């Protein structure tokens, strides 16, 4: 599965709209993840997961910043995300199923915040992109 030219353009254009709300989007995505899929909280026993927590906001920012990096390096994701791939494979070891859950929650967040921009084409391109990004991040797992 690789991105088509028009999908790339759609992804980058949507990112431009997201960038200024990155922290809010990242935080909301995590809140949705922890509410809908409580088992994901097992990866954050050391976090204060209450709404508005500084840790939640910082982590949400971090995740969205990584998504932004991926967008900027959309043509060479595997090499650009090497460090993060290794982090997830050897240190974090988040079960691969959770990438789908996080991706879904990000899409729900985008649909809620960008009703006009979140067209079927944008939905498809971003779902595909997040799926590819998830594969890259789990590439070194075994």
């Amino acid at each position: 599965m690789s991105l088509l030219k028009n999908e790339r353009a759609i992804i980058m254009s949507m990112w431009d709209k997201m960038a200024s709300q990155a922290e809010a989007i990242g935080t909301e995505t995590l809140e949705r993840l922890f509410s809908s899929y409580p088992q994901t909280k097992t990866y954050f026993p050391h976090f204060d997961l209450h709404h508005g927590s500084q840790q939640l906001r910082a982590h949400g920012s971090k995740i969205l910043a990584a998504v932004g990096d991926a967008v900027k390096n959309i043509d060479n994701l595997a090499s650009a995300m090497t460090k993060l791939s290794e982090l997830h494979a050897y240190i974090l070891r988040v079960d691969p199923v959770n990438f789908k859950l996080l991706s879904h929650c990000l899409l729900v967040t985008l649909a809620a915040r960008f009703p006009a921009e979140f067209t079927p084409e944008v939905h498809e391109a971003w779902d595909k992109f997040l799926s590819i990004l998830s594969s890259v991040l789990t590439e070194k797992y075994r």
Partner: protein
Amino acid sequence: MVHLTDAEKALVSGLWGKVDVDEIGGESLSSLLVVYPWTQRFFEHFGDLSSASAVMNNAQVKAHGKKVIHSFADGLKHLDNLKGTFSSLSELHCDKLHVDPENFRLLGNMIIIALSHHLGKEFTPCAQAAFQKVVAGVANALAHKYH
């Protein structure tokens, strides 16, 4: 069995009452066919599905989306007995339609995204969590009679 708290039940029925159910149905099914094009395998007789706009404007997709969502809505009235409610539909999907139950999970998530799209801020993390329980329950109920 789906276990919703009273607060979650209230959230679900309250928000469901605010949306145009037919539109949610059409959008959910269309999104499924656009985002996961391999799901078109069940709808070859639906005519033009060649582009996102073709799918979104396809009359048969809309009609079928309506049918599906009304069935889903029925489930909302019987959260205590989803397996019973969807028993014959489950048999149909297995024996006649030959649909992989994974597709019920995908469609369930498309319903969630359509709801988020229409409700915006009101579709809070708590609201989503309640609906995720519902769609998971419905998907499981539809898969229950598979053999």
